[in-house]
């Protein structure tokens, strides 16, 4: 089968201006730090970023914001990165805030072929603005629609050459759902092993979801 292991340079040819990119990680734990650095270095611009948060200044996907490469971010929390708030206030960055659990379900729905999910979270709040509601058995729900991306960039603790991914401890977070919901899936591996060398019971993302594997430069 196709060899999925490529260099960072090769994979950067696929990441181009205007792309919608899902970035795995939670406050940069489980984030593809090498790929993020390469995007900053290449200066890929007009990006739409989908990510749990925008990290803290100087770390992970906050660098994309700081370099003004992002035109829109769909996220649950920006409080840890004042630069995101600043650009939002200035009007140069469109920030769409979504409850964290709804964000996970919207991405999962896209990957799992669902037309949406009904959630009680956010009913009657600003998070309901512009969203359809439905009453089921006397309770009101928001219809949250599927959320897809052009590209998902992920980080795996151990990745085999077929693309099967094991995520250690809290590095999982949004990585597994994002792997299912993008046209192109790139994983940055801390460690690469031979196909089949991860216990099949410990594989969290099946290799069929992964298009490219790069070796991480980062040990953080």
């Amino acid at each position, binding site marked *: 089968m196709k060899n999925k292991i490529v260099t960072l340079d090769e994979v950067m040819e696929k990441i181009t201006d205007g792309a919608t990119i899902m970035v795995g990680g939670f406050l940069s*734990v489980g984030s593809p730090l090498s790929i993020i650095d390469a995007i900053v270095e290449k200066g890929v611009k007009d990006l739409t970023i989908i990510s749990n948060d925008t990290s803290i200044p100087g770390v992970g996907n906050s660098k994309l914001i700081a370099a003004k490469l992002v035109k829109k971010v769909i996220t649950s929390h920006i409080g840890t990165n004042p630069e995101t708030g600043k650009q939002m206030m200035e009007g140069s960055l469109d920030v769409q805030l979504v*409850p*964290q659990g709804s964000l*996970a379900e919207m991405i999962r729905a896209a990957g799992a072929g669902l037309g949406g999910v009904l959630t009680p979270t*956010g009913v*009657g709040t600003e998070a309901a603005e512009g969203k359809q509601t439905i009453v089921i058995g006397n309770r009101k729900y928001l219809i949250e629609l599927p959320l897809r991306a052009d590209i998902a960039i992920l980080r795996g603790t151990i990745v085999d050459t077929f693309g099967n991914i094991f*995520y250690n401890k809290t590095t999982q*977070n949004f990585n597994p759902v994002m792997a299912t919901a993008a046209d192109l899936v790139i994983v940055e591996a801390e460690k690469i092993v031979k196909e089949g060398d991860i216990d099949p019971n410990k594989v*969290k993302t099946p290799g069929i979801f992964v298009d490219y594997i790069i070796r991480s430069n980062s040990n953080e």
Partner: protein
Amino acid sequence: MSNEKITIAKRIAKELKDGDVVNLGIGLPTLVANYLPDDVDIVIHSENGILGVDAAPDKSLVDKDLVNAGGSHVSTKHGACFFDSSISFGIIRGGHVDVAVLGALQVDKNGNLASHKVPGKMIPGMGGAMDLATGAKRIIIATLHTNNGSPKILNELTLPVTAINVVKTIVTEKAVIEVTPEGLLLKEIAADTTVEEVQSLTEAPLIVSPDLKSFDVAA
């Protein structure tokens, strides 16, 4: 942390029962874990994907792959486990968290909660707060009674609502208040205050419990 905050954390610790699955918000709520009685063992949920959170490790034992939802390095108890965000919020939304201890900007007499946004100021985003406030079986609010003297417990929220009709218990340095269909029930007051003072610092009317108790959790 101020003495007031420690008082609040200590009082909330008494609300937790052995085996409870508990989510502690960032800041003041996190303190609660430090003051549990010896015979109470709780399972701490962190929304980034842990059940069984334990204290911060020694620097030499820090694991880069193991943080809580505040981004702080933690350790885990025996029997802990890890999962992804969709499962983590399934646990929250599905009612499998017994108690969520959350901070608040405002709470009103109907149990409505405002915790995620002050218009015109920095907008942090709701993170997991809306899911927790909507999904946890019991919401305990941990908050200073006032914001520099102006009441936070109101007739009606003036800030954007985070979740509607969800707060069950409010614990401040001055009082323990239950949200009931009849209104706010004042169940306990701190040893160093009076019913009159608590009411004067609270916009919403308080129903004084016939069984009113005093609490003193100072060290």
